[in-house]
């Protein structure tokens, strides 16, 4: 499964970014072969609709689950339409690697 985590930097040891549309980076991680790649979020500096543009980006990359601190209403609608599942972490101090471990252990929650 392809998952995406919002982060502040471009490695698995980077701290996560709790914002979805305005995160600096996405780390795309393949849970089957544990390969990963970092992408700059093209929506980070957009004037408006960042959540939508970020969702569009992940949909185009074939992501199946997005992991972030919170999802705005527009991002939620766009991700839902794309069939991308949303999962949230609580602890903003974690690294991407720790959040992936939590996700795999099913310790993360879904938005209400």
């Amino acid at each position: 499964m392809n998952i995406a985590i919002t982060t502040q930097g471009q490695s698995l040891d980077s701290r996560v970014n709790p914002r979805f549309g305005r995160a600096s980076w996405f780390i795309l991680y393949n849970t089957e072969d544990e390969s990963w790649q970092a992408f700059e979020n093209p929506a980070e500096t957009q004037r408006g609709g960042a959540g939508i543009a970020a969702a569009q980006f992940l949909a185009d990359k074939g992501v199946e689950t997005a992991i972030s601190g919170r999802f705005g209403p527009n991002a939620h609608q766009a991700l839902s339409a794309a069939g991308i599942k949303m999962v949230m972490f609580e602890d903003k101090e974690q690294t991407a690697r720790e959040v992936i471990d939590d996700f795999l252990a099913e310790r993360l929650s879904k938005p209400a």
Partner: protein
Amino acid sequence: MIKIAIASGKGGTGKTMIATGLASVLVREITLQFLDCDVEAPNAHLFLRPEIHETHPAIIALPVIDPDVCTLCGRCVDVCEFNALAKIGGQILIFPQLCHGCGSCNLQCPESAIREKPHPIGTLSLGQTESEIQYGRGELTISEPMPAPIIRQLKRKMQNHGEIRILDAPPGASCSVVATLHDADFVLLVTEPTPFGLHDLRQMLGVLEQTRTPAGVIINRDGIGGEVDKGRTGITSDVEILLENRNIPILMRIPHRCEIAAGLAKGKVLTEILPQYRMEFSNLYLKILEQLQTQRTAA
């Protein structure tokens, strides 16, 4: 026609007090329009008491996509400046609250799959005051997020006759303010000598650097906010230090007085509360004309 916009950055510094006072004085001498561009909370009518003669809906055109014609090429998504469209899950999603109604998606659609549906976002009200100020205001419907199109439509609706146009701007320094200032000849910035006034004035100066509109400042509640004597003659507040550094003139000062606040709360124009402000506003207008001369020559 000379277009003077009254803006501030910070809310509650006295924009409408200045705009209505200046308009009330100038209309005795010249034909004048007053546009209340604070479309999220217009309030100048409380002071000017115009009679409204006509109202019009303010409308933006939202795209509607015919899924039978759309080939999902994604051109509309690419051209949308505001991310109001997304190509997701085999369809084009439209987010109406982000749409500015610019029509780019419709113009750029190679299949002509888009038509436009008028969407009312507010009301334009036009009328006249007893003193013959040509009055207009825009009003954004509650829950609608897009004030700028209403401001542009209000300007179009109020034809350009009259010698002077006063634009009462919204607070802040974002799109609605830029839409108000867009074609102004001069911007009067109303501020107060407090840290909040200073912070938001700085933001407005940033906007004016972009628009390159000549500007002058009115310091309202002059004397509050504490004095910071930096050992420089005549300069007593951080606001004034900023203005001196940026070379922006202070055109008028209004003290912090209880009777002004009490009169405004009763819906009185400043010149009704304190008649000496008739002369002050006349002088202000002359200073604006002078600034227009010198700042234009400098530019």
